């Protein structure tokens, strides 16, 4: 979503990141309800990985305010390449 917001909708990097999080709340909620209907959601593991992630997001948003937009874009591209390599190699 962030690349689409930046590449197609003309958002700045910081705004794209912030607005994307707002959109993700709605999307993840709908996705979770649907996946729960299939019985695929593991609630204990979700808490185990999700609660530390809430602590992480507080650190991440704070740190992001001190970083330039182009650095955010390059970091995002690195994340995407890492995901590609992981998925192809596994």
């Amino acid at each position, binding site marked *: 979503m962030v690349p689409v917001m930046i590449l197609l909708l003309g958002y700045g990097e910081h705004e794209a990141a912030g*607005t994307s999080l707002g959109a993700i709340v709605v999307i993840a909620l709908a996705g979770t309800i649907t996946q729960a209907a299939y019985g695929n959601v*593991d*609630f204990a593991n979700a808490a185990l990985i999700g609660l530390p992630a809430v602590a*992480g*997001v507080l650190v*991440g948003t*704070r740190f992001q305010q001190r970083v330039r937009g182009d650095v955010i874009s390059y970091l995002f*591209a690195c994340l995407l390449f890492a*995901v590609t390599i992981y998925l192809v190699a596994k």
Partner: protein
Amino acid sequence: MIGLVLAGVLAGVLAGMLGVGGGAIMVPALVIFAGASQVGAEATALLAIIPVALVGAWRQNRYGNLRLKEGLTLGSLSIFGAVVGVALANLIPQRGLELSFAALAAVLGLQMVVRTYRSGRKSDPESAPPFDQG
């Protein structure tokens, strides 16, 4: 268990930095550390992402980076896509799902690099040809 906790922290930091949900870290972590299937990991990560995105959006709003109406509109429009995506994830073979996602990530990553490099060159005065100045 410690692997899941550490992956969670890392996913959260990335979510705050880059505006992602953190699923790119959570899904492989759930497969590796909790032995979940790809579909099970994606489903569990979706639930874990909700509080992360909520808290992240709240913080970003305080920094003036959240366009709330547009975010909610984009999110609502994506619900249809998410529902179809979840149904497809339960139909498509696992390897096909992984490779499709890998291809999408590679294309978007390349576009991000090209765009950022070009806009950097445009805004950098030293990169402009001498005859264009003054």
